[in-house]
């Protein structure tokens, strides 16, 4: 097998990655969920992480989002370590500095139900970036227009459909102008007919050059929108390929078996 980092550098020698997982392992108790996973994400990359459930995809994403501390290895953002097993003081300080450069969209949206759509969007820009209110509102309105929900500005999340809630959640993440946007199975909690509207927004972001790391079960999205596909199984990266190559000619038997499930 190849070394993940070397492989990616070979793909895209220009520049340093925006964010890298370097040899990340994670154990919960005695349960090893990730085993030395290395994954660099370059600028404008749309990396899709696929694999069976329980393969560690979400845990990897949560380590990169700084929601979990790796048991081994580290997360590096533009050359600076932002998460290590010991979480030393300089690492924590570095993490605080880049915290809002990493956006995340959750499977269950996690909108704040006691705030309107607009309040959800301006909360972090007001409190974290300390933007003036009119400026935060103006950019929130632009983002709502972008995800097609201008008319829901003053609605509470509970009044929206799942697809609309997820689009608001994407707008909320974009409001901090992140350098990389992580998607944790963003369409898995949605009814099939509501997935499309979310996938369309994600596709549009990809086309605009947003750097994205997408954990997904949407093989079509990975195949047609992803610039790179990473296949994980049992806590390891088993295979990775550019563009649609992973789907056209999976190399490993595990990947072939995984992809068979999606054939009708």
């Amino acid at each position, binding site marked *: 097998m190849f070394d993940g980092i070397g492989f990616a550098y070979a793909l895209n020698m220009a520049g340093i990655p925006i964010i890298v997982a370097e040899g990340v392992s994670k154990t919960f108790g005695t349960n090893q969920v990730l085993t030395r996973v290395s994954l660099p994400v370059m600028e404008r990359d749309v990396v899709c992480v696929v694999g069976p459930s329980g393969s560690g995809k979400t845990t990897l994403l949560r380590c990169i989002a700084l929601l979990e501390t790796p048991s081994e290895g580290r997360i590096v953002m533009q050359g600076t370590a932002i998460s290590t097993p010991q979480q030393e003081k300089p690492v924590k300080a570095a993490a605080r500095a880049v915290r809002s450069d990493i956006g995340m969209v*959750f499977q269950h949206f996690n*909108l704040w139900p006691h705030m309107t759509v607009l309040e959800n969007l301006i909360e972090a820009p007001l409190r974290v970036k300390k933007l003036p209110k009119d400026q935060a509102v103006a950019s929130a309105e632009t983002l709502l227009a972008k995800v097609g929900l201008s008319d829901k500005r003053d609605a509470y999340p509970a009044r929206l459909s799942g697809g609309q809630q997820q689009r608001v*959640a994407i707008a909320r993440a974009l409001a901090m102008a992140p350098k990389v946007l992580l998607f944790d199975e963003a369409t898995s909690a949605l009814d099939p007919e509501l997935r499309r509207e979310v996938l369309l927004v994600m596709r549009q972001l990809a086309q605009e050059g947003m750097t994205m790391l997408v954990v997904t079960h949407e093989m079509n999205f990975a195949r047609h929108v992803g610039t790179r596909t990473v296949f994980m199984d049992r806590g390891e990266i088993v295979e990775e390929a550019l563009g649609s190559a992973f789907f056209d000619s999976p190399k490993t038997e595990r990947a072939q078996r995984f992809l068979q499930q999606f054939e009708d």
Partner: protein
Amino acid sequence: MFKYQFRWDTVWGSFDFLMAGLQMTLIVSGITLVLAMLAGLVIALLDMSKFPPARWIGVTFGEIIRNTPILVQLLWVYYVLPIVFGVRIESLVALVIGLSLYQGAFISEVYRSGIQSVPRGHSEAAQVLGLTPLQNFVRIVLPQAIRMTLPPLASNFVQLIKFSSLGAVISVSEITRRGMELSATNFRPLETFTFIAVVYFLICWPLAMGIRWWERRLQAQ
């Protein structure tokens, strides 16, 4: 029983005397609710503390209070604290202290379950967006937790009104105590205690109904 001659006039004649007791009951309940909410906050913070000794104190205190009778606690505060600290405690103060600690131990659980009812994902979303832990608690967790705790807190107030009648045994001059004093002079316990029960009911029942309606409305949201 059938030959009993009701003498409600013995109650009406002392109406003002009893109502002054009711006033005391409500004052005690109101003050105690505020103190119990503060005591509950302290106990909840101890319970959720990162420091094991603090947690141990909070948990032990809560368990002792919740698993001993309130009447024994009141007697203990009234008779034992003066021995330990060598100061005489007013019966009213003893009642307020005893009830506050007792209700506080229950209210701390209300707070805790309120905070735990907020899905973790909500604060994770805030964390990823860069909110500090304090901002996260104040802006995201607390507003949602408070909504969940208001109806149980109101229920606690109803309970306090009823428990304050225990003040009678340490001679706090609230409505039950006054009823005991009245029936000892008019020899009409039936009328006296029936009247007092009705007064409690007329206060507690509408409150309880209102809370139920309020809870349903919150759930519907």
